[in-house]
């Protein structure tokens, strides 16, 4: 693990592309004094790091289409940005650099924007062929091709194309998609996939889960299903599995409520034994003072108290409705039969009583 980023300079036509690399990842990239985004594979990053010097000529990567494509794309973005901002400093730097075809007889901007010029021609052709591939819905077509060939160059293109399609797939929403009707073959495919891969829950933050999702989408595409449907089928099946195993959230909430009321019932039943003052408090919750006295005089903890404590307790809990809390009980425990203890008990419980009255008024 690197503690600090290391800076590397790649010279392209004598123009430096500054890269700072930490832990085999590009942290920052600067070109013509602007921070830019560059994506390079780990393999290329390793080549940069292992090069004997930190200044590397781009010629070293001659023949590496991925490197050339990334750097070229970044420069192209920088040029477009400079044109949009009318950034004359960057534009004149481009004009002098030889990174752009430049008709020296014409104005630099006119030369770039010339509709019959090479840049405009290429941009238009790439756009047209992109939409041509999209209109023909070549994703399934290309996926079939991927199965038939093992060609690195074509493979890289297919990978990117398919990844784009996956990223564009509709997000799963339980409310919208849980009951959506899907092709039964697709649902069976999803069920078998989930079963064979032992997937129980999907965590979007987990790389393995994302990989499983992608793998299923690839499988579904190969079987002729649409990317959106495949994603919905994957998550719908997972959610249905969870529901059949653990029930819906609503079911679980009503079960919790049921259990709570069962616990309350059992606690009350236990309290009916009327051993402690807490038992008394539970049993006498909704009773009138007269009914409360009947229960209190049979309470074991009450019977074990001295007369002064009994009197005080009767006043507090029967007439003044002071709740029997742990604090209240500890005051009774610490108080003794002698007057000093009794007074202290009175003082503490008077405080509790006034606090209770304030709470009740509020």
């Amino acid at each position, binding site marked *: 693990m690197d503690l600090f980023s290391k800076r590397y300079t790649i010279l392209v036509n004598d123009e430096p592309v500054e890269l700072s690399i930490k832990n085999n990842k590009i942290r920052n990239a600067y070109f013509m004094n602007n921070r830019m985004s560059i994506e390079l594979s780990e393999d290329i990053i390793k080549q940069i790091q292992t090069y004997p010097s930190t200044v590397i000529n781009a010629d070293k990567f001659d023949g590496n*289409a991925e490197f050339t*494509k990334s*750097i*070229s794309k970044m420069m*192209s973005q920088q040029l477009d940005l400079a044109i949009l901002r009318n950034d004359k400093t960057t534009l004149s730097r481009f004009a002098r650099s030889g990174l*752009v075809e430049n008709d020296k007889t014409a104005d630099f901007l006119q030369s770039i924007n010339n509709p019959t010029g*090479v840049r405009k021609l290429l941009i238009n052709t790439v756009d047209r062929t992109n939409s041509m591939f999209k209109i023909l819905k070549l994703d399934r077509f290309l996926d079939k091709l991927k199965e038939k060939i093992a060609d690195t160059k074509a493979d890289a293109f297919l990978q990117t194309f398919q990844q784009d399609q996956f990223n564009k797939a509709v997000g799963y929403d339980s409310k919208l998609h849980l009951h959506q009707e899907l092709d039964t073959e697709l649902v069976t495919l999803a069920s078998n996939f989930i079963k064979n891969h032992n997937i129980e829950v999907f965590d979007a933050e987990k790389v393995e889960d994302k990989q499983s999702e992608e793998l299923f989408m690839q499988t579904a595409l190969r079987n002729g299903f649409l990317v959106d449907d495949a994603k919905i089928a994957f998550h719908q099946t997972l959610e249905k599995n969870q529901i059949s195993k653990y029930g819906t959230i609503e079911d679980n909430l009503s079960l919790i409520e049921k259990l709570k009321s069962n616990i309350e019932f059992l606690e009350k039943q236990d309290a009916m034994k009327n051993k402690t003052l807490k038992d008394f408090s539970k049993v006498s919750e909704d009773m009138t003072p007269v009914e409360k006295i009947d229960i209190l005089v049979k309470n074991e903890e009450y019977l074990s108290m001295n007369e002064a404590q009994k009197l005080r307790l009767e006043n507090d809990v029967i007439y003044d409705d002071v709740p029997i809390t742990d604090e209240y009980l500890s005051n009774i425990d610490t108080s003794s039969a002698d007057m000093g203890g009794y007074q202290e008990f009175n003082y503490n419980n008077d405080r509790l009583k006034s606090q209770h009255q304030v709470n009740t008024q509020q």
Partner: protein
Amino acid sequence: MKEQTIEALGKAIEALDHNKVSWVNKHLVIDLNEKATVLLKSVEHFEDDELQKAINVSQEFLRDIENVISKLNGGL
């Protein structure tokens, strides 16, 4: 038709050489080159309906890149 398309795509791939353009345009040429390669592989490997589809797409693609090829071959 299959052989002609393969030949035309092969020539297009050869012509779509990013070394012929400057750095800011290289990625565009590479993109077209990759598309041509994918179509070439499709025509080479597919059969029946799929082959026909691949040939149709390739013909359209070749028409689209005609101007680019002539520009690149003409020394810009």
